[in-house]
């Protein structure tokens, strides 16, 4: 277990605890470090990932100073994970910035240590092949609202440490993958359910992937290193994989789709085809047809359920049949024969394509030197955990084969 004199048995506030990283931080602080964890949530609806834990709930917005001060009262450490992507507002008006400002003020007043979760995206697209914390802060482009907000928040935090004596540390994790990661785990797995993914045959990219548990370990270690110098630490994983490798590992978990290596010309052709078939109506209908959970969620709303009920009550059988066919792709009754084994070939999501052009590697050397951070997982060693979760989540394979009961398996802890 990671040594952490500050976190062991401490009282720790986690903001953004309903999210992917925040929930795992809360999980491990409670289960491994015996910490008393407090969480600040806007509503209990976002608490499903941490509801299984004995945590103290505080209701409030991370930009509300009174709510944050109340939640941080008596805490030794605050793990600040709350962030939101708000592309249409100025960096200083984002929840990311305002929330960091509020949390920083509350921590400096209450003398609590602050571990701020930022992102490696603050370095934009750096030119050197190895990037460390000395690289200039620069967003990839002027519309990269996420990076701009993170840059502004880091600056504010460093100022707050100088002016108000706040003790803080900043973590800059690279691309975090793991259970519940929407962008980097769920998206490729979902996509590989119904399509093969095309990647360029001359892929020389570097996939800076770090497993979520390594970031949690780094956050716990960073709590020991909080001081008024407010140091930043890049947190990366073990691997030096290309994006093709990264996606291939996901396909190897047992998805119907696979990664198909194609020429740049074919990739450009696929891009042209994809942009031609993009229309809002078609996209919405495809989403409704392909995603039963979206259908169910819409029907569970008052308006959606009511509209459907009215349709059922007054709509003719023919109309209902048409609606059902458009929404679910079903005609009644229908006999379907097994689909051809060839899945359509599609491009990876745009955010993968953007990163698949980058060839730099983020260095965790400073974190290794100063925090004693050692990345534990490569994509391959994290795979058994990820695969178990993906099977359980019905994202791959046949989950009925896995018993859900404790079987005292020890092979999961490598």
């Amino acid at each position, binding site marked *: 277990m990671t040594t952490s004199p500050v976190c062991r048995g401490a009282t720790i506030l986690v903001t953004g605890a309903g999210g992917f990283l925040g929930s795992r931080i809360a999980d*491990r602080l409670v289960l491994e470090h015996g910490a008393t964890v407090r969480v600040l949530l806007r509503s209990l609806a976002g608490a499903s990932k941490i509801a299984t834990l004995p945590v103290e709930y505080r209701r409030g917005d991370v930009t509300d100073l009174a709510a944050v001060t109340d939640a941080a009262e008596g805490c030794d450490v605050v793990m600040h994970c709350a962030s939101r992507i708000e592309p249409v507002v100025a960096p200083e008006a984002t929840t990311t910035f305002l929330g960091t400002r509020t949390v920083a003020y509350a921590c400096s007043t209450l003398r609590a240590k602050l571990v701020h979760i930022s992102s490696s995206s603050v370095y934009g697209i750096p030119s050197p092949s190895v990037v460390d914390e000395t690289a200039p802060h620069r967003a990839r482009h002027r519309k990269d609202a996420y990076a701009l907000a993170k840059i502004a928040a880091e600056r504010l935090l460093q100022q707050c440490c100088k002016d108000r004596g706040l003790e803080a540390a900043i973590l800059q994790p690279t691309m975090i993958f793991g259970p519940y990661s929407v962008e980097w785990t769920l998206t490729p797995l979902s996509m590989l359910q119904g399509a093969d993914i095309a990647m360029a045959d001359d892929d020389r990219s570097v996939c800076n992937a770090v497993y979520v548990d390594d970031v949690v370990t780094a956050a716990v270690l960073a709590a020991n290193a909080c001081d008024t110098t407010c140091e930043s630490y890049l947190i990366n994983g073990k691997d030096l994989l290309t994006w093709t490798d990264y996606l291939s590992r996901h396909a190897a978990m047992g998805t119907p789709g696979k990664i198909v290596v194609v020429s740049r010309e074919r990739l450009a052709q696929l891009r042209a085809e994809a942009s031609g078939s993009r229309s809002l109506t078609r996209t919405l209908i495809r989403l409704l047809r392909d995603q039963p959970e979206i259908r169910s969620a819409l029907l569970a709303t008052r308006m959606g359920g009511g509209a459907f009920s009215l349709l*059922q009550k007054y709509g003719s059988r023919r109309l209902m049949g048409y609606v059902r066919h458009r929404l679910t792709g079903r005609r009644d009754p229908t006999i379907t024969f097994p689909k051809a084994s060839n899945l359509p070939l599609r491009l990876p999501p745009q955010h993968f394509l953007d990163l698949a052009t980058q060839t730099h590697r983020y260095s965790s050397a400073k974190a290794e030197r100063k925090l004693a951070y050692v990345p534990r997982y490569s994509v391959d060693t994290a795979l058994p955990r990820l695969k178990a979760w993906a099977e359980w989540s019905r994202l791959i394979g046949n989950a009925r084969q896995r018993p*859900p*009961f404790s079987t005292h*398996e020890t092979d999961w802890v490598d």
Partner: protein
Amino acid sequence: MEYPIRLAIVGCGTVAERFHAPALRSFQGFSPVVMVDRQLHRAELLKSYFPSCVAETDFTKLREHVDAAIVALPNDLNAMVATQLLQAGISVLVEKPAALNVESARELETAALKGRAKLAVGFIRREALGVRMARMFGDVRIKRFADDSRGGVETNAHIDVETQSGIPGTVELSWTRSLRNTARIVGTRGTLDVEWYMNAARLALPNGLHTLSGEVTGDCRLCGGADAFPMMFLAQLCRWCAWLRDETRAEERVADASDGRRNIELISSCRAMREQMAEPWREGVTAG
């Protein structure tokens, strides 16, 4: 019982506002006359949906004014309020959970059996097609129960069950996963899936040669089931009204006090044999 039945809603929270009130507006069997909530503004909000209705903060004043009441309160208050209403001769549809423990559920059942008022329990998903199909197999016995609580509340549960005739089954419940949302019967000659929220079924042959999909129609007990969430509340209301007026067959009645008690007993027996759900991705990370 006179028609339409005079009705109160006790507890004007989200469930009452989003589901019971809209169902009542599209059903003529009840005449809502009183809305009760400790927070008067909530009662007044619901009152605004029904022209001849009054808002109240005290449920003990209902005796003379209503014949029946929907109780949709926080979990720990349902049993206490429902018991008092039953003792006052008011029939009750209480939201689940009707009680927090077996003793409390038995007291509630006793109160219902003693008086002339009837107690119904709002097991809304019994109106869903998938559940109606699963219930064709009769009562089940719990074989194993696992959940993922680590000192908090469970968000995933896995239950192995067995029907009276020895057919094994599994129930999976989740807040964090997108499950299939179907009732699935696996037979030797095929697998039948009935969706919960859509009137649709799918029959697949074990050799994977082809799949037959379509609506559930014809002379079977699935017909008449609700296939959208708001429709379940309406179906429940119709069934409750018919039961209050003694116009329903025993097998079509709404869930009653004994169903409510058996439900709490079932939950209690699950808790008694609880095992920790295996979640290897959540286990400890040893030091490197």
